[in-house]
């Protein structure tokens, strides 16, 4: 690691509109650790992960639920030196680090890269075990936020988060409502044989990259009306969905590789995996993407066929979908799938409208 990659962290605080006069002379703490300094948040693509998506804390969670907060915190403190095992977001985080390494090689002075932040409502004392585990796996997570029980949602904006991953669907929903791309992750069921040289991210189309406007027609008026509607409005771009901006951020990083002639060897690959069929409803999707200036590397129209087998072939580090039916199908065949709780799909299960919850729930 060459020394010109390590800079005074004090410079970080000197964002033009927030200059402090005592910042100068503060120590080059990153220089002493010989680690690359974390990127400036406004230039980076910030990924916030919760402690339970980064690590498997099933056992510890059981203690919290059965024995309460005090016992849980003591347990974690007693086991502070034991590293936790990887969680569902762990492969994704490793893949982000791989991309960063390639970016640093090509652009040593740039802050345009991934910045991974641990955002958790865990107690700070549990944090010691979390950071010890981060050290154990040598993960590049330099920033963290442990709110000791308070909701972490307000902090997501403060840390300039571009994507938030959590196991708690309530928090994810709050984040989406606050305009932050977010998805719910589940327990990592098995070891995955994922690429360690290329980050692969797969997205569903409707209600993930795009709004749920067409899906509403599909659910309320049926497939035929849906096809007619999409053909009629083929040239009208769909409104954006909660994960559009994240795809956009990935595209910006991809272009940094393209401009250095590395398109064939780009360490980021994106996929659109949609139940739409190319013939009847695909045009609108592609035209929408074009109007946004966005690309995906592969657009896969399944015309209603199950997504599981295709995803199994793609082996993404993460797959975003708004419908639990697709999430479950993907998980059955070993794909790491994250649920985006947005849009009309939440009111249906396997095509059937859910009864609204009785008041008080």
């Amino acid at each position, binding site marked *: 690691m060459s020394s010109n990659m390590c800079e005074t*962290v*004090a*410079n*970080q*605080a000197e*964002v033009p509109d*927030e*200059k*402090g*006069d*005592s*910042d*100068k*002379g*503060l*120590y080059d*703490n*990153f220089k*002493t*650790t010989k*680690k690359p*300094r*974390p990127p*400036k*948040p406004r230039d980076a693509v910030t990924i916030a992960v919760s402690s339970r998506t980064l690590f498997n804390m099933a056992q510890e969670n059981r203690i919290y639920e059965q024995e309460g*907060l*005090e016992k849980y*915190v003591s347990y974690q403190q007693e086991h502070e030196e034991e590293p936790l095992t990887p969680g569902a977001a762990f492969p994704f985080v490793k893949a982000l680090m791989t991309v960063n390494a390639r970016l640093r090689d090509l652009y040593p002075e740039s802050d345009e890269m991934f910045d991974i932040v641990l955002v958790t409502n865990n*107690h*700070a*004392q549990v*944090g*010691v075990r979390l*950071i*010890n585990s*981060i*050290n154990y796996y040598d993960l590049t*997570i*330099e*920033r*963290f*936020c*442990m*709110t*000791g*029980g*308070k909701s972490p949602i*307000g*902090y997501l*904006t*403060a*840390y*300039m988060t571009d994507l938030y991953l959590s196991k708690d669907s309530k928090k994810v929903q709050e984040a989406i409502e606050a305009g932050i791309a977010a998805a719910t992750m589940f327990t990592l069921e098995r070891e995955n044989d994922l690429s360690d040289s290329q980050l692969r991210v797969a997205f569903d189309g409707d209600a993930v990259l795009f709004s749920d406007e067409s899906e509403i027609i599909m659910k309320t008026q049926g497939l035929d009306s849906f096809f007619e509607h999409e053909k009629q409005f083929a040239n009208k771009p769909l409104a954006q969905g909660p994960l559009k901006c994240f795809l956009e951020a990935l595209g910006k990083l991809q272009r940094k590789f393209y401009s250095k002639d590395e398109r064939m060897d780009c360490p980021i690959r994106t996929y659109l995996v949609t139940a739409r069929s190319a013939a009847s409803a695909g045009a609108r999707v592609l035209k929408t993407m074009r109007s946004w200036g966005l690309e995906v590397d592969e657009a896969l129209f399944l015309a209603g066929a199950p997504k599981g087998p295709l995803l199994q072939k793609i082996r993404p580090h993460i797959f975003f979908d708004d419908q639990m039916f697709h999430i479950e199908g993907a998980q059955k065949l070993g794909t790491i799938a994250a649920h985006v709780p947005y849009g009309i799909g939440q009111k249906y299960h396997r095509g059937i409208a859910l009864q609204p919850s009785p008041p008080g729930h």
Partner: protein
Amino acid sequence: MDAEIVVNTDIKQKDSRHALVIAIEHCAFFDQNGDWEPKSSNTASEVLSHGPAISFIKAIQRVNHKLMEKNPNETFLFDVILICNNQIPENQSKIVTSAKHYGLEISRFCFCNDASFTNSMLSNNVKLFLSTNRDDIVKTQERGLPAALLCKQVAQEAVDQLKFLFIGDSLGIPEDLKGEMFNVNQPHSLQITQASLKELVAVIGQMRSKFGQDDSPLRTCLVTLWSPRDVCVRALKTFRDWGMEVEEAYCLAGTPPSAILAQIQPHVLCGDGLYHMRDVAALS
């Protein structure tokens, strides 16, 4: 002029041998920084009506109340005194009247000047000096006394829990690197401020440990502004050794702090010589 102490006869005095005495500078009771001049139109009662100190005292009162609930004979309580430099006698009486009018649990008023300030702090067994004036905080620290910033509360409603936020960047530096690490303009006070910080952390930690994890009226937090994560963890462990298990921890590693500090919403911000940072200043 020697310091003059006025006892608030409306308040039951605390046992000063055991109480945790906090001195609040009078400027913290007003919205603006700098010297305060009461308008002649202010009635005496209205004088102390604003300022971050008000919500702070309310949160303190809640802590004391809960401590007394657990043990009606508790002597380890917070004891708030108001400290006032160089006030004319007229304003002195207005301040006392106003505190009584609002029922603020201020047990004593200490009117002194620069010369008698340090003695007043020591003789009143003050464990922490709070102010909204950054220069006064730094001056107090330079005299070897523990001092911290009383923060403006962003939300209109007072936050229920009394929240202390400690800036831990200087704590996590390995001993051998401390010498070369700090700004030469900073006085030698690093040793002094750390020693007084340790005492403060120990006593606040002691207070905090009287409550369980849930429903505590007192909350402690740690933030590092520039340091890598290991420094933050080292600071966390140091605090633990000193007797305080912080509940919240934030490692910013250079992220612009103002939005995050506004989310944390502390009442008190303790840090070594960092009060001239613009982001920190925005809290006062």
